[in-house]
């Protein structure tokens, strides 16, 4: 039978990042999937080796526009552990606040884009309008809507004034009310239910076997959250819950993300109300620890890791191997969209 290659190609209205899925179809049935990545490969690992670690921070921020704070946090955390630096408690709280605000804006973004893909533009407009409240908060605290630049090795760069804290706390109740409305919408709205239920079902065994991370895995029942299981910053001290779901389809993943939104609002409120006094950074020495290291952290889309080997003075002598959850996500996308294991690995 003749086979047709349908390229969901690098430039496509539905795609926000260039990636090429070559879907090979026989009539209406999909037989194979060829994956073509590398459109966004910028060579960040090599650049990070050539710069000293203070200059690596802005570089690592620009790995991804949506989860930029997480990359710098895990890098700074790694270097601080290698140097055996203990950062002050206030700095940890500020990092947690920014990380959770980033998670909130990322989940609202995802919800809007998912609604846009099914044609439900009203939800797209609503969620992104509510996202502007989060962006305003971040802009007041850090100076930029995206790529905040708050982290440095040894703490955070900017402090939070009481006015900023009060302004942020004042925005939270309205956001919470809007999120409750979205929960209600996702559970009851017929358009969403018809398009989300039963699509892209991933069972628990498949999620484990193919290495799913983050909300995708939690929606299939895998109870793993790096914030609870490998705790860093102040997640061990703040009361919050891990959200899981057993559905495993797009509906389950939506429910997990909205649940996480509510939890993030709780965490931000707790941290803002209980912000301890103190310094915001310590001076980092310019020595060279020599060790292998593997810190892990949970940005909004799943666990992410860097591995260092050795440092010489202020430069990284070894490699930072940046693994973005997008890679595993793409493999999973192949599995999900066509229910066949691609010829890919």
């Amino acid at each position, binding site marked *: 039978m003749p086979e047709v290659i349908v390229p969901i190609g*690098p*430039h*496509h*209205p539905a*795609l*926000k*990042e*260039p990636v090429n899925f070559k879907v090979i179809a026989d009539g209406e049935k999909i037989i194979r999937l060829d994956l073509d990545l*590398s*459109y*966004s*490969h*910028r*060579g*960040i690992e*090599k*650049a990070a080796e050539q710069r000293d670690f203070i200059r690596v921070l*802005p*570089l690592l921020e*620009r*790995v*991804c*526009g*949506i989860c*930029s704070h997480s990359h710098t946090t895990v890098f700074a955390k790694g270097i601080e552990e290698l140097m055996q630096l203990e950062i002050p408690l206030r700095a940890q709280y500020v990092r947690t606040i920014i990380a959770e605000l980033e998670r909130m804006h990322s989940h609202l*973004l995802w919800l809007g884009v998912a609604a846009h893909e099914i044609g439900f533009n009203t939800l797209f*407009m609503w969620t*992104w*309008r509510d996202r*502007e409240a989060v*962006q305003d908060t971040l802009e007041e605290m850090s100076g930029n*809507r*995206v*790529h905040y630049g708050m982290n440095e090795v040894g703490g955070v760069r900017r402090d939070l004034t009481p006015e900023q804290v009060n302004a942020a706390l004042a925005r939270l109740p309205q956001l919470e009310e809007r999120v409750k409305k979205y929960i209600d919408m996702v559970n009851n709205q017929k358009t969403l239910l018809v398009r989300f239920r039963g699509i892209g079902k991933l069972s628990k065994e498949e999620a484990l076997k193919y290495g799913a991370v983050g909300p995708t895995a939690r929606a299939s029942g895998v109870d793993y959250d790096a914030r609870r299981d490998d705790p860093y910053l102040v997640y061990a001290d703040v009361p919050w819950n891990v959200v899981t779901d057993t559905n495993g389809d797009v509906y389950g993943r939506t429910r997990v993300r909205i649940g996480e939104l509510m939890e993030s609002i709780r965490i931000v409120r707790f941290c803002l109300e209980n912000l301890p006094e103190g310094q915001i950074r310590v001076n980092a020495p310019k020595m060279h620890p020599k060790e292998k290291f593997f810190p892990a952290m949970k940005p909004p889309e799943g666990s992410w890791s860097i591995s260092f080997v050795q440092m010489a003075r202020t430069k990284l002598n070894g490699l930072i191997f940046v693994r973005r959850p997008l890679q595993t996500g793409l493999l999973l996308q192949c599995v999900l969209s066509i229910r066949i294991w691609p010829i890919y690995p």
Partner: protein
Amino acid sequence: MAVPSAGVSQRLVNWARLKSPWVTLFNSGGCNACDIEVIACLMPRFDIERFGILVKGSPRHADIMIVTGHVTLKQASRLRRVWEQIPEPKYVIALGACGASGGVFHGLYHSVNSVDSVIPVDAFAVGCPPRPDEIINAVVTCLNLLKEDIAHGGKEWRQTNGIKNIKNTNEIREATL
């Protein structure tokens, strides 16, 4: 606003182009922050659709192409091909530090350092990522350029006057006086 010998239909077309430019996005391998800011322009806070600016998927429907992100070697040829598919008159806006010179990724092994070395760029927007206000400013700059191009009957006047890569609408006015 039109060249004296333009007929009614041409004047109508020019008016429609100025009042409602259609835009296409091209992500040439960046970190996505610029794309998010462009989409934030469409959202109720900034809302460029009330100006008639639509974001279309196909390059053949567009007047202005917005190139976001830093051009990687792999995307360079695709960028050229997509640019060639846009019908004249066409304008290109390169967003951010990556579009201007490569940004933080300048000089790396998989990068072409500036959008300008692949396709001719008409406006650069400043920032990393540029705020939605800046992006709207860049689109308005392109519209002013379009107006001048119609008045001069094409794009050649820019080379002779030495205008290239204009960031600010005031500069166009000064240069054409």
